[in-house]
């Protein structure tokens, strides 16, 4: 059963990759759609491989800084809203406002305030902040009512309730938010790099597009996809592990 669950997606992927190779090789979709083998050859070319590795390192560093910043800030503000219910209405509206701002419109403002170097990280932090604020809030409020009552009758202080119960119960929801935020951080970083960062995968995407280096463009996008999916995959596993241990509060 488990094996079959693994075989179908693998066969599906293999078929898609074969189709890609065929379409590219016969230029069915024009000469800007290269074959898979042409794209993979980019990784075999030493200077271009070095460029991709260097750029990926820069992008991942920016994304990681922005992700960490946005996640910590989002979770911290959600905790504040939980601790001081009076602030919640205002903070909720602020978070919605932050989310409503199109990242692409924010970028020029950040370029002239934060600078070219730090804009990718700053733009990565924006969607991560919103997602973590929301998911942490949902997790904290979603804690079982009956357990809340047990803590009340046992004479728990507000702090004990938060530390021993609500925060732990919120972990699966927080990880779920972190999982979705991984791709959000990557989008923010790439967009930030387009506005003239010194290095990064976004810069390579832009340059290879303008210089008509088609296989390099595709290879860069492939690297971006692999990074994003790995982040998503690792956090999915963490979420699943947390749910099996912490979830089912009412079971």
């Amino acid at each position, binding site marked *: 059963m488990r094996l079959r669950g693994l075989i179908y997606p693998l066969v599906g992927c293999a078929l898609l990759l074969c189709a890609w190779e065929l379409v590219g090789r016969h230029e069915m979709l024009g000469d800007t759609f290269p074959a898979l083998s042409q794209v993979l050859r980019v990784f075999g070319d030493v200077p271009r491989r070095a460029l991709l590795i260097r750029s990926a390192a820069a992008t991942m560093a920016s994304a990681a800084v922005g992700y960490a910043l946005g996640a910590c800030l989002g979770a911290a503000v959600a905790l504040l809203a939980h601790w001081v219910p009076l602030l919640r209405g205002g903070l909720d509206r602020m978070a919605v406002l932050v989310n409503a701002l199109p990242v692409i419109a924010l970028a020029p403002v950040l370029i002239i305030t934060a600078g070219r170097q730090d804009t990718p990280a700053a733009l990565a932090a924006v969607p991560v902040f919103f997602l973590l604020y929301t998911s942490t809030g949902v997790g904290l409020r979603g804690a*079982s009512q009956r*357990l809340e*009552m047990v803590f*009340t*009758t*046992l*004479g*728990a202080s507000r702090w004990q309730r938060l530390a021993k119960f609500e925060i*732990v119960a919120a972990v699966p929801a927080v990880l779920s938010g972190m999982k979705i935020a991984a791709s959000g951080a990557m989008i923010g970083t790439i967009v930030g790099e387009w506005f003239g960062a010194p290095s990064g995968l976004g810069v390579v995407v832009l340059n290879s597009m303008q210089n008509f280096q088609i296989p390099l463009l595709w290879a860069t996008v492939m690297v971006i996809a692999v990074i994003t999916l790995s982040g998503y995959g690792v956090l999915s596993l963490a979420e699943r592990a947390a749910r099996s241990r912490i979830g089912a509060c009412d*079971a």
Partner: protein
Amino acid sequence: MATLALAAVTRSYLRRSGGGRRESFAALGPLDLTIGDGEFVALIGASGCGKSTVLRLLAGLDAPTSGAVLINGLPPRALQAQHALGLAFQEHALLPWRSVAGNLRLPFELAGIPATTERIVELISLAGLAGFEHARPAELSGGMRQRVAIARALALRPKLLLLDEPFGALDAVTRRRMNFELQRIWLEGRPTTLMVTHSVEEAVLLADRVLVLTERPGRLRSDTRVPFARPRPTQLMRSAEFHQLVDELTASLERA
């Protein structure tokens, strides 16, 4: 220990009527009630008559609309602050990420009292769960979880034990066994206890007094003393006296 007093207690809620106007409807009372130190009292009545409201008022989870709820002359919150209240629900409400021992340690942690290994072992054997110390709630049966929840409620030797349909989610056979388990556990400390239940037999088997509430708004319909000596054996449930009392109370419940 604890003496409870409810004096002219009422509880009403606001709800939206058909026209969208808010109107108040009475859920409970007026209710006068005293429960003596070390008494085991069972509360029965039709669904929605306010049984659980009485329990929530005593637990300090809800406040009366009028009247006073006093435990040893103080409001229930004082008992919470003294960590002298034990509560168990129909559903166990254990922390799913903690083991049996971890869940039993919780009341001690919240009260800032060191949980000695001996006391935890004692509670585990009280719950009849020796060998399951490290099991998580998900690995236990419904009856086992419920015993952990009751042992947790008793962990700090509370002055007042509140049980809200503690066996309502269990099958008939397990429920019967748990009734006798509860009697055994209760006899060790005899805390003042109020148990809400749907089962007349359970009430008669376990309680010193059985209170019947009327339909909404719940008032006291009858207050019946249960004369049987403790510990009550299984044979009691087959005796004529037992059945007669169950029948009387069932009739009272039907008139309610």
